[in-house]
C-alpha cells in the first residue's frame, strides 16, 4: 500500500509542472465548461449506495446519466479507474467569502453595526475572488453557507457554490436568517461578568427578541392585509421568517439554552427552525429529537465547553445526537480553513457517528435541511454536477482530490497554496547564487 502511495506521489510530483502551466505569463487556468464523461469510477452516491466501475456523464451542468459503459460523443473523457466520485461536500456554517484576513477590520464583512440587522445580505458581501475560495474547493468542499454574525439578528445567510464571478452566479438556492439565542453561558475566558449579570443580560436579550418577534408578527399581518407600510427593511425581512418563507437559524449551544430555544420555537410556532452550534446537544439530544428540529453542529474539532466534560465531548456530540434521532449536519464555522470540513466529519465518524452517516452530514443532510436536495447532496441523474473525484476516502488526509466539478464546471486544481508549493519546493537560486 505504501508503495502504491509513493508511486502516486511520484506521479503527482511529475505532473505538477503540467498543473502549473497557469503560471506562465499570458496563460491562465479557468474553470472549464462542456461535457465530461467520467469513466470507470467507484461512485459513492450517498443516496443509492456505492456503484463499482460506473461511468458518470456530465452535460449542461448536470449529471445527465450514471451507468456502465456509457459513451458520449464530444464529451471530454476522464479515466477514473481506481478512483472515487463523491458529491461535493457542503459546509453548513462558515464565513467564507465574508472575510479575507482574520484580524483586519478592513477585510471583515460578516458583522454589521446594530443589534437587529436581519436585512444585511451575506450574498452582497461575498467576494467571489477571495483567495480562500480556490484553497477550499480543491479539497472537494464545493458548497458553503456563508453566515453573518454578531447581535441578535445579524443578517441573512446565503448558500453558495464555490465557482462564479458574481455572487448571483454562486448562489445556489437557500437563504436563512440567523438569530443568536440569549445565553446563560460565559462567552469566553475574557467574559468577566458575574453569574448575576449573565442572567440579567440573558433575560433582557430574550425580552428584546420577544418584542422584536411581536413586532415582526404585527408587520407580517399588516403586510398580509396589504396595509400601506412605511419603509422598515428589518421588519420586512423578519416578517418573511415569521411567515415561514425564510428559515430561522437559531445559534444556541449550552444545554439549558437549547431547551429554552426549543420551548421558544414551540411558543412562537416558528415554522422553519434550524438549530446551529448546539455544542452541548448531547446533553439534551432526546429533547431535540422530540422537537423534530434539525441541527447544524460544529466545529467537531473543538474543546469541550465545560472543564468537567469528557475530553471527547465535542468529537462525540454529532454521533450522540444522531443516535437519539436528531437530523445532524456538520459545519466548520471557519473561513480560511473550511477545507477541514472532511476532517471534522472524520472525527465525528471515529467518535460514534460512523463513516456513512458522517458523509451524509456533509452532503445530503444539509441539502435536505436547506431544501436544495433536488439539485445537491448526492450523485443522482438530474442533479447538479457538483462533485469531486478522489483516489480514496476523502476524510483521510493521505487521500488526494483529483478533480472538482461545480455546476458542471471543471475547476482548476490550483490555489495560491499550491502555486507557492510549486515555486518554493525547489528554490532557484538555492542557498547560493551562482
Amino acid at each position, binding site marked *: 500500500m*505504501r508503495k502504491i502511495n*509513493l508511486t*502516486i506521489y511520484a506521479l503527482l*510530483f511529475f505532473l505538477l509542472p503540467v498543473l502549473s502551466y497557469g503560471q506562465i505569463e499570458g496563460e491562465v487556468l479557468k474553470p472549464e465548461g462542456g461535457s465530461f464523461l467520467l469513466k470507470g469510477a467507484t461512485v459513492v452516491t450517498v443516496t443509492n449506495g456505492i456503484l463499482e466501475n460506473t461511468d458518470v456523464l456530465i452535460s449542461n451542468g448536470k449529471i445527465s446519466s450514471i451507468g456502465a459503459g456509457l459513451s458520449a460523443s464530444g464529451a471530454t473523457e476522464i479515466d477514473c479507474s481506481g478512483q472515487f466520485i463523491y458529491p461535493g461536500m457542503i459546509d453548513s456554517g462558515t464565513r467564507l467569502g465574508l472575510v*479575507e*484576513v*482574520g*484580524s*483586519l477590520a478592513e477585510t471583515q464583512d460578516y458583522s454589521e453595526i446594530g443589534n437587529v440587522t436581519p436585512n444585511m445580505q451575506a450574498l452582497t458581501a461575498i467576494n467571489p475572488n477571495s*483567495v480562500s475560495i480556490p484553497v477550499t474547493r480543491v479539497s472537494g468542499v464545493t458548497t458553503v453557507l456563508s453566515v453573518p454574525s454578531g447581535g441578535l439578528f445579524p443578517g441573512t445567510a446565503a448558500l453558495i457554490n464555490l465557482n462564479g464571478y458574481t455572487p448571483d452566479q454562486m448562489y445556489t438556492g437557500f437563504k436563512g436568517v440567523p438569530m443568536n439565542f440569549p*445565553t*446563560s*453561558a*460565559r*462567552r*469566553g*475566558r*475574557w467574559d468577566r461578568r458575574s*453569574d448575576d449579570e449573565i442572567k440579567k443580560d440573558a433575560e433582557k436579550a430574550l425580552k428584546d427578541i420577544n418584542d422584536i418577534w411581536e413586532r415582526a408578527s404585527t408587520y407580517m399581518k399588516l403586510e398580509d392585509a396589504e396595509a400601506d407600510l412605511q419603509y422598515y427593511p428589518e421588519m420586512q425581512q423578519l416578517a418573511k421568517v415569521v411567515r415561514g418563507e425564510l428559515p430561522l437559524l437559531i445559534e444556541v*449551544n449550552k444545554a439549558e439554552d437549547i431547551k429554552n430555544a426549543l420551548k421558544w420555537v414551540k411558543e412562537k410556532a416558528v415554522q422553519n427552525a434550524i438549530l446551529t*452550534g448546539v*455544542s452541548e446537544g448531547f446533553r439534551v439530544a432526546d429533547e431535540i429529537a422530540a422537537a423534530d428540529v434539525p441541527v447544524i453542529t460544529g466545529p467537531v*474539532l*473543538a*474543546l469541550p*465547553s*465545560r*472543564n*468537567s*466534560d*469528557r*475530553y*471527547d465531548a465535542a468529537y462525540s456530540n454529532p454521533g450522540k445526537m444522531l443516535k437519539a434521532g436528531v437530523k445532524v449536519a456538520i459545519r466548520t464555522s471557519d*473561513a*480560511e*480553513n473550511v*477545507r477541514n470540513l472532511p*476532517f471534522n466529519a*472524520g*472525527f465525528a*465518524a*471515529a*467518535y460514534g457517528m460512523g*463513516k456513512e452517516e458522517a458523509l451524509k452530514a456533509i452532503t445530503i443532510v444539509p441539502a435536505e435541511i436547506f431544501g436544495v436536495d433536488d439539485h445537491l447532496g448526492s450523485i443522482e441523474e438530474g442533479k447538479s454536477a457538483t462533485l469531486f473525484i478522489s483516489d480514496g476516502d476523502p*476524510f*483521510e*488526509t*493521505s*487521500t*488526494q482530490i483529483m478533480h472538482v466539478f461545480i455546476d458542471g464546471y471543471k475547476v482548476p486544481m490550483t490555489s495560491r*497554496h*499550491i502555486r*507557492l*508549493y510549486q515555486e*518554493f*519546493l*525547489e*528554490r532557484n537560486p*538555492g*542557498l547560493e547564487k551562482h
Partner: protein
Amino acid sequence: MKKFTYIMLSIVLFGAKSLYAQTPKGDVLIQNATVLTVTQGTLEETDVLVEDGIIKKIGKDLSASGSIETIDATGKFLMPGIIDAHSHLALDVVNEASAPITAQVSMADVVNPFDVGIYRALAGGTTVAHGLHGSANAIGGQSITMKFRYGTYNPEDIFMKEAPRTIKFALGENPTRVHGRGKNIQPRTRMGVEAIIRNGFAEAQQYKKAWESYNSVKDKKNSTATPPTYDLRLQTLADILDGKIIIHCHSYRADEIYMLINVCRDFGVDKLVFTHVNEGFKVAPELAKYTMGASVFSDWWAYKFEVYYSTAYNAAILMENDVITSINSDSDELIRHLYHEAAKTQRYGGLTDEQALSLITINPAKQLGIDEFVGSIEEGKQGDLVIFDHHPLSVYAVPQMTFIDGVKYFDINEDEDDQRIKVSPTEMVEPVYLKAEDERCMHGVELFMQEAAAFNHTH
C-alpha cells in the same frame, strides 16, 4: 527509648524521601504491537519492555518478571509520546508585555498542574509540551519543557528536568503592535525589532565583559575590584550568547526570519529554532543551514496579514529542503490531535508516514534539545508511549493509552466523565465557555491594545 528510635527512624525516612523524591517511574510490557519507532522503522508484532521508566528492550516474545503489567496490543499501533514544541497549555500567565525585552521572567513560575487541558492533551497522545512565553516582546521570557504527569499538585513534578533552557523571541506584528503602536516606544517596525535584539545582545556582551574582567582580578592579592551589579535580564541574554539557552522565535515573514538568522550569526548564536514560521518555506535553504529547525502550524493561515501569503505545504517544503521540521499546536485544542495535524502533510505535500510522524516526535525533541531522552522508541530512551487503535496518521485513529516514563496517565477504558483534580469551592455555577479561547500567544496584553478585543486569532 524504643519510641524515640521509631520517631528518629521515621524522621530520617521522611527526610530521605523528600531528598530523593522523584517523579514516578513505571514498568510495563506492551506486547505484539505494530511499533512505529520513528527512527528505526516499523516493527510488526513486536514487544516493548519498559523498566523503571526506561525502554529496556524491544523485540519479539519478550517476557517480564511477574509483577510487571502486561498489555496485549495485538492489532494496535505503538508510537512515541507526541511532543509539542509550542504550547501555552497549563500556564497561568503568558505575557509580561511591559517591555520589549523581558528575558528575566520565566514560565516555570506560572505552571498550573491542575489544568484539565493536560489530561485532554494526554488523551490525544501528547506527553511533552514546550510551554512558551507569549509573543508581545522581541525578547520574551524563558520557557518550560513539561512532561504531562497529570495528577500532581506540585508544578515541579511536571517539569522535564533534563531539558535545556529555552527562551521566546518574537518578530513582526505582535511586538510592533504592543510596543510601537500600543505604547509608542520602539519597536514599531521590523527594523525596530532587529535593533531591539541587536541592542540587547550588545548590552549583554558588555555585561559579560564586565563580569569577565571582574572575575579575572577578584582573586588577586589586594584586589579592590567590586563586582558589577547582577542583572538577571542581562545574565539571561549573556547565557544565550554562551549557547546555554535555545531560542524559539515566533516569526511569520521570510524577511524577518532571514533577519534573525543574520543577527544570530553576527553574535555567534546558533541555537535557534523558528516557530509558526509561516513563510519559512521561502527561506528553507537558509533555515536548513543555519538553524535548529522550524516548528510550524499544519494549515493555519490568513488569520492575520503576515500569514496571508502562507501555504499549508509549508511543512512539506521545509522537510524536503532538509530543515528539521515539527508541527506544533499553540492551541489547547490542536494539542489533542497533533497526530492528525501531522497527517495533513500527506495531503499537502505527500510526506511519507515516517516523515509525518517525525514532525511530532523526534524533530520537536531535537528542537527542544531532548532527543537523547524522548522522541523515538529506542532502547535506553524514556518510556513515553502511546497506543492507537488505528495507524495514528488515519483520521479514524483513537488514542487508547498514554504512558510517560512507563506510567500510564491515560487509558480510554478508565477515562471518566470528570477528570479535574481540583474543583473550585467558590464557583457557584460551573462556567460554560461558548468560544473556547485556546489561542494565547497574546494573552495578557489587553492593557496595551485597544484593538485586542477585535482579534479572533492572536497568535
